[in-house]
Each structure stands twice: as structure tokens, then as C-alpha cells.
């Protein structure tokens, strides 16, 4: 489903987080990307929806070479990839409902369809009762769950999560990870970048450890 071959990424400043990385994630797999801060976990994830372009090497998503993807097709690639961020990236002047609805609004879906799917997604992450609230009134863990609801509301085949348990206590972290496991169980290819090694070890999925820009 996701294949990186000899991928290197070098920023103009000289920083080089990835130096010849080979990664292959099977369809329907759940994979953890581990490694120290700055090991290139976020960069790896950002290559998949083409938020970044590799300096060298090849990135293939569902068999398509992203280097050959025309600019105007990028939005459609991103629609098939749900992604959550460590800083959530929510709109603070919109309610939870509107935040989660955004990916559906972008696709021009009918109102009834939007309502049904947004409610289902918020219900799934346990925030249906707060759908009229604004993100600032929520805790970090709740905001992370809103981000997850937004990522899965279109039922994408791929789900990427960047440090989803960043600042959460162990109980909440486990809850969030179990949520990802549930999505994975219904066939969503899931890639999670995290440095919460004890939790990852406890869950027991495949791990890809990044070190000096390579898969160790």
C-alpha cells in the first residue's frame, strides 16, 4: 500500500532527516514508526500525502508514483489519506461538528450525508455530546480525538498519525491507540509515528525503527 524506496530528504539548511530509507507497509497493516526526536518520523509521514517531496528516491502510494502525480491531483491523494497531527490542526473558530465536517464539505457531499457521517465519527471517538463545543474548551486528549474523527470521517483507506499520544497520560494514550487498532481492524492501513516505546511494545504490532535517517 505504501512503499518508500531509497528515500532521502535534505532541507535547504543542510538538515538531512532521511538518508536512503526503504519502507514497505502492506495493505491493512498497522505499523509503528519509532525513533528518537528528529529521527525523521514526521518527515516520513509527511511524504505520503505529499506534504513534502523527497530529495531523492521513490514514494509509491497504492501503486502510484507520487513524483509523477500532477499538482492538481494532490488534493485527491490527500482525500484518500486521513492524517492526525501532534498539534491537532483544528479550526478554533468552528465547532467540533464543523471541524469534523470539513473533509466532507470539501467533497461537496449532501447535508444529510454529512450530518450522519460526522455524528458517527464523533460518536466513535466519544465526543458526540460536545459536537457544538469549540476546540479550545477541550483537553489535549479530546482535541486529538477530534483530529482522529476528522481523519476517519471520509473512511479513507490509509490513516497516518503523528505522535497521537504526545502529551497524554498512559491511560488516555492507551485509549487513543486502541481507537487506531479498531480502525485497523476494519481494514484501514494505519501508520503511527510515536516515541512512546513501552506502550508500543505492549500493543505488539510491527515496528520500524528510524535511526540516522534509515530503517534500523
Amino acid at each position, binding site marked *: 500500500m505504501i512503499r518508500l524506496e531509497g528515500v532521502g530528504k535534505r532541507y535547504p539548511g543542510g538538515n538531512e532527516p532521511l538518508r536512503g530509507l526503504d519502507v514497505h507497509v502492506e495493505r491493512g497493516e498497522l505499523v509503528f514508526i519509532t525513533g528518537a526526536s528528529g529521527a525523521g518520523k514526521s518527515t516520513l509521514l509527511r511524504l505520503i500525502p505529499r*506534504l513534502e517531496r523527497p530529495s531523492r528516491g521513490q514514494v509509491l502510494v497504492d501503486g502510484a508514483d507520487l513524483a509523477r502525480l500532477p499538482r*492538481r491531483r494532490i*488534493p*485527491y*491523494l*490527500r*482525500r484518500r489519506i486521513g*492524517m492526525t497531527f501532534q498539534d491537532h*490542526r*483544528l*479550526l478554533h473558530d468552528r465547532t467540533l461538528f464543523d471541524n469534523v465536517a*470539513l*473533509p466532507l*464539505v*470539501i*467533497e*461537496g*457531499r*449532501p447535508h444529510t450525508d454529512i450530518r450522519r457521517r460526522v455524528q458517527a465519527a464523533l460518536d466513535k471517538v466519544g465526543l458526540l455530546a460536545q459536537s457544538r463545543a469549540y476546540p479550545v474548551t477541550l483537553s489535549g486528549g479530546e482535541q486529538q480525538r477530534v483530529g482522529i474523527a*476528522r481523519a476517519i470521517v471520509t473512511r479513507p483507506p490509509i490513516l497516518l498519525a503523528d505522535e497521537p499520544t504526545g502529551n497524554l497520560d498512559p491511560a488516555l494514550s492507551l485509549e487513543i491507540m486502541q481507537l487506531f487498532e479498531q480502525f485497523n481492524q476494519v481494514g484501514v492501513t494505519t501508520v503511527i509515528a510515536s516515541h512512546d516505546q513501552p506502550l508500543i511494545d505492549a500493543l505488539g504490532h510491527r515496528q520500524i525503527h528510524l535511526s540516522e535517517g534509515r530503517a534500523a
Partner: protein
Amino acid sequence: MSISALPKRWAKLHAHAAISSLGRLRRQWLGSIMTAAAIGIALALPAAFVVAMDNLESALDGWQGAPRASVFLDTGTEAAQYPDIAERIRALDGIRGVRLITPDQALTEYRQSSGVSDPLALLDSNPLPAVVLAELSGGLAPGAVDRLADRLRALPAVDDLRLDRDWMARLAAIIELGNRATALVALLLGLTVILVLFNTLRLDIENHRREIEITRLIGGTNAFIRRPFLYTGVWYGLAGGLIAGGLLAIAVAFVADPAQRLASLYGSGFRPAGAGLTGTLTLIGAGGLLGLSGAWLAVGRHLSAIEAP
């Protein structure tokens, strides 16, 4: 997604953009009203020029002081031929009416108007020629007046011809000048509207930077991101056009009475007209179009600079 669902989806995306942009304007209503008013005033000025020029032309068109030609007949012409010659002049194209002034009438008129002394009384016979005053049709082009003059001169028994040409030429020049000035004002203020909207939309885009970034992040197309801003420009332009139409109607009502009094002093029953329904709709449409242009420029310039973070 089936093909038949595509137009529906497209219409839905447009409706969403149109409504959400209206919502944005409503949330900052004071600023929105001020921008729309600035656009309205900028549109009202050239529109007022157009209406004024239209009124000027229609006032002059109905005026009795339409161009005239004085056709002097040979002094040797028999008095019995006068009506016949006058009739032949009347029959020409571009002549609206004629009035014959016989030498006797001319003498009487002269005596009445000059009053004090009468040098003509010293002469044995009346030296004044018969004159046919020909009123030309309004709206003749200068070339057509020239051709008409040539034909008048070619008539038998016509000695000389005097045209009110200076007056016509001046009037034509004034109207031409007025129309040019109107075009210039319209051009400059149209440009002003585009610049005002460019700047307003630039700030609007900057204020929505985070929203644009996140929309890109989750797969919003350029068209989706662009649309609400384009609609914002159109709404501003339409509102500005509406305000301009209102201002213009007020202005016309304000000057109508004195203008009518002035016209009546010249013996005209003229009353100034406003822009009318077509004119007002044109004004609103022009506002919308200028709004779209300004927004398009701002969007093209500033939106592409905002990438997904």
C-alpha cells in the same frame, strides 16, 4: 460517484461558497458595509456623469434652438416665386420646416428692432433680399449638414447661405468632451474599485491563512479554497452597485427641480431622468463584474503562496 451527481455536487459546492462568504461578511458587518460604501461611491460618480450626459443630450435634442440655415434668395427673384422656392427647400432631406421672410417683412422687422434711426428710409427701394429660414433636423452629422448646404446652394435663385454651424460645432465639441471625461472617470474609478477589492481580499485571505492551510492539508482543491473569496468580491461589487444606484437616485431627485427650472427658462419642458431600471441593473452588474476581477487578482496573487504547513 455517478456522472449525473456531478452537476449537483458542483452546485452544492458553489452554494456553500456563496453562503459561507456571506456569513464571513456578516460576522464583520461594519467593515463590510464600509468597503461596500466606498465601492458604491466610486461607482456612483461615473454613473452620475453618464446620467448627466444622457440628460444633456436629450435636453438639447428637444430644444427649439435646433440648427438653422438662413437661405438668401437672389434680389432679382420675383415675389411670386418665393412660395415655390420655399416649398422646394422644405422638400429636401434633413429639413424639418421653413419660414419665408419677404423683403417687406424683413424691412418691417428691421425697423422694429433697430428703432431709433432708419437709414434704409433714405434708399429708394428695399435692398433686403427675401430669406427662407430653414430648420434642420436634429442629430445631423457634420458631414450630412455639409451635403445639405451644398444642395441648398445648388438650388436656382439661391444667392447665399448662412449656417448656424459654429453653435453646432461647439455643442458637438462639448458633448464629445463630456463623453471623453465620463469615460476617463469611469476608467479611473473602475480601477479604484478593483484596487479596493484587491486590498480587501488580500487582508481577508491573510485572516483565513490557517483555514486555508488546513483545507489544503485535508485535500481541498484550489478551486474550493478560491471560491469563497471570489464570491466575497462579487458580493462586495453587487452591494456597491446597489449603493451607487441608491445614491444616484437620491442625487437625481435632489437636482431635478432646479434643473427643470433652468430648462423652463430656456423655454423647454425638459425634466431630468434617472438611470432607470436598465441603467441601475447595468450599474449593479458592472459592480459585480469589477468585484469578481478584483477578487480574482487578489486570489491569483496571494492564495498560491499559502501551502499546506
